[in-house]
C-alpha cells in the first residue's frame, strides 16, 4: 500500500483560487477523513488526488510517483462517488467487472474477484440485478465493491453515505470501518458530517475556505481544537463559546463573562494574562449537574430540554449567551426541570484568543 503526499497543492479556476496550498502526508494503510463545511475545498482536493481535476500548483505523490500529470486510470486509485455512479445498463456483476475488463483481466480471475467481493459485501444474491432494482444501501455497497474488486493502492470516498437514511448510514459506516480494517488500503474519505469523520478516521483533516485548519486524531481534535472554527465544527452539539475577559480571582485566573466567573486552568500561556480578551469554550459533554471535586458552578437559566433517551440536551442561558449542556438522564428527566446551575472543571475550559481565534494553551 502507498502513502499519499500533498505538497503545496493549489487549485485555481481562472483567477479564483479555491484550494490555497495544502500540505498533507497520508501514511500507507491510514484512514484519513477530510471534513469541513460546503465549499471548503475538500471534494476538490479529493478530485485532484483522483486525477479528475487538474492541479494548478504543488506536487501530488502517491507512493514515490509524482502524479500531477498522470491520468486517473494510471494512478491505481479507486473512487466511491456520492451518487454511486453505477452504470445503469449493467447488472451488479458487470458493474464490478467493468474496470477489470477494461484492464483486460482474465475472465476466470474477474469471476473469482467478483465472487470474493460480493461475499464480503453481502451482494452474492444480487449479482444479476440492475442498479434500479437495488435499495440505496445495496447500491452503495455495489459502488464500494466496484472499487474494492480492483485492489487499488488508494481508496477515495466522496461523501459516500450522504444519500442514505440515518440508520443505514450508521450501518454502512461500520461496514466501511470493518472493510478498512480487513483490507488495510490507504483511504481518503470526504464528508461534511463530523460524526462520520470522528467514527471512521485514524486522522481527521479539518478544512475551511480552501485551507487546512487542523490535522489530528479524532480525540485530539475533540480535546484540543486549535481554533474556534475547529472547536465549533467538531463535536455534536458544538462547543459552547462566549466572549470573556481574564481576571485575577481568589484561587488564580478566572474568566468573567455576563456576570459569571469561570475558574481557568493553570496554563503557562496565561501567566500575566489578566485583562486579556478571550473566547471561552466549554463542551456540552464537559459539564455536570452536581458539584464534584474541583468543579465550579455556572448559574444558568433553563430554557428547553431535548430528550435523546439516555442523554438530554439542556438549552440554557448564561447571562445573554446561549449554553447547551449534554447530561445523562438515567431513564427520566424530572430531575432536570429545576436545574439552575451547571458545574465544570477548570481543566475542561478552553480558551481562544478573541482576535485571532487561536487556542491558548493545550489542556489535557
Amino acid at each position: 500500500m502507498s502513502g499519499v503526499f500533498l505538497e503545496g497543492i493549489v487549485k485555481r479556476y481562472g483567477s479564483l483560487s479555491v484550494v490555497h496550498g495544502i500540505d498533507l502526508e497520508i501514511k500507507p494503510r491510514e484512514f484519513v477523513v477530510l471534513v469541513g463545511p460546503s465549499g471548503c475545498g475538500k471534494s476538490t482536493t479529493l478530485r485532484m488526488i483522483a486525477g479528475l481535476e487538474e492541479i494548478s500548483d504543488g506536487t501530488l505523490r502517491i507512493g514515490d510517483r509524482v502524479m500531477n500529470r498522470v491520468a486517473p486510470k494510471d494512478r491505481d486509485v479507486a473512487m466511491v462517488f456520492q451518487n454511486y455512479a453505477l452504470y445503469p445498463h449493467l447488472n451488479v456483476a458487470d458493474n464490478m467487472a467493468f474496470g477489470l475488463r477494461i484492464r483486460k483481466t482474465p475472465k476466470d480471475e474477474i469471476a473469482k474477484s467478483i465472487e470474493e467481493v460480493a461475499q464480503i459485501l453481502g451482494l452474492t444474491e444480487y449479482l444479476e440485478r440492475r442498479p434500479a432494482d437495488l435499495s440505496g444501501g445495496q447500491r452503495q455497497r455495489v459502488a464500494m465493491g466496484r472499487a474494492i474488486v480492483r485492489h487499488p493502492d488508494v481508496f477515495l470516498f466522496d461523501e459516500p453515505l450522504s444519500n442514505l437514511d440515518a440508520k443505514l448510514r450508521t450501518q454502512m459506516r461500520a461496514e466501511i470501518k470493518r472493510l478498512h480494517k480487513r483490507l488495510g488500503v490507504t483511504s481518503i474519505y470526504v464528508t461534511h458530517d463530523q460524526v462520520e469523520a470522528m467514527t471512521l478516521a485514524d486522522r481527521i483533516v479539518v478544512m475551511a475556505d480552501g485551507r487546512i485548519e487542523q490535522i489530528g486524531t479524532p480525540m485530539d481534535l475533540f480535546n484540543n481544537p486549535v481554533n474556534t472554527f475547529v472547536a465549533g465544527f467538531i463535536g455534536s452539539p458544538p462547543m459552547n463559546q462566549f466572549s470573556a475577559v481574564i481576571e485575577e480571582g481568589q484561587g488564580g485566573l478566572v474568566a468573567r463573562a455576563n456576570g459569571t466567573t469561570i475558574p481557568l486552568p493553570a496554563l503557562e500561556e496565561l501567566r500575566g494574562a489578566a485583562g486579556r480578551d478571550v473566547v471561552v469554550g466549554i463542551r456540552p459533554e464537559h459539564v455536570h449537574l452536581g458539584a464534584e471535586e474541583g468543579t465550579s458552578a455556572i448559574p444558568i437559566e433553563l430554557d428547553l430540554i431535548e430528550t435523546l433517551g439516555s442523554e438530554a440536551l439542556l438549552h440554557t442561558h448564561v447571562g445573554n449567551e446561549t449554553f447547551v449542556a449534554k447530561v445523562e438522564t438515567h431513564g427520566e428527566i424530572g430531575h432536570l426541570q429545576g436545574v439552575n446551575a451547571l458545574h465544570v472543571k477548570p481543566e475542561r475550559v478552553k480558551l481562544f484568543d478573541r482576535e485571532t481565534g487561536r487556542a491558548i494553551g493545550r489542556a489535557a
Partner: protein
Amino acid sequence: MKNMNLYSRGDKIFVFANMVLIALFTVAALYPFIYIAALSFSSGFAAAAGKVVLTPIELTLAAYERVMSEPAFWNSYKNTFIYTFGGTLTSLLIVIPGAYALSRPQLWGRRFWNLLVAFTMWFHAGMIPFFLNMRDLGLLDSYFGIIIGFAVNAFNIILLRNFFESIPTSFEEAARMDGANEWQVLWKVFVPLSKPAIATITLFCIVARWNGFFWAMVLLTDEGKIPLQVYLRHTIAELSDDEEFSSTLLSAPYSVETVTAAIIVCSIIPVLLIYPWVQKYFNKGILLGGVKE
C-alpha cells in the same frame, strides 16, 4: 366526506378540446395510409372510377402481382436497403463520436465547433454547388456517393450532443477511474446510456434514407442503382405514357393508381416493421437507478 372536484370546468374543457384535436390529427395522419392500402387491393376500374374511400373495392392482388413481376422493382428495393442500411450506419458512426466530442467541456474551441455545426443547419451552398461538388469528387452514379454524401446531419448531431450533455458527469468520471479512455467512455458508457436518443436518430436516418428521392434522382442516372422512390416515380411516368396500357385500362385488373399504391405499401412495410422495435426505447428512462438524484 364530500367528493372533491380536482379539475375546474375550464380544465375539463381544455382537456376535451385537446382530445378532439388529437383525434382529428390522428385521423388526418392515418387516413392517407388506409386509403392507399385500400386502393392497392382494389381493381383498376374501381380505382379509376374513384370508388375507393376506406376499404378495397373489388378485392384483387393484381397490382401486387404486376409490381412483383418486375425485376427492376426488386433491384430498386435492394438498392434502397443498401442506401438505408449503409447510410444509417455511416451516419451513426460519424454522428455519435461527433456529438460526443461537441458535448465535452474539455474540447478546445468547443463553442466555435458547435456554432460551425449549427451553422450548416440554416445555411448551405445550395443544390448546384453540391451537385458540382459530388461530380468533381466522382461520386455521381455511385452507391458510395449517396451513402457518404448525406452521412452528416447537423440536427442529429445537436440532438445527440444535448442528450450526452444531460448524462451525469459522474458516469464518465467513474469510467475514467475504472481505467476507460475517451473511446471506451463513449462506446461502453455513453452509447448504452443514450439508447433512446440513438434510437431516435436511427429512426430519423432510416426514414430519411428509405424515403430519399430528390438527391437520388439528381445524382443517379444508372437505372440499376436507383432506389425504390425513384423507381416509383419512373413507374408512374411509364404507365401514364404507356398507350397500350391506357387503351386496356377498363379491362385491366390494375391501373396506374393501384400499381402506385401497391409500390407505396411495399415501401412502407419495412419502416412499419422497424418502428415498434425502435419505439420501446422512446418510453424508457435508461438512466434510472444509476445515480442517486
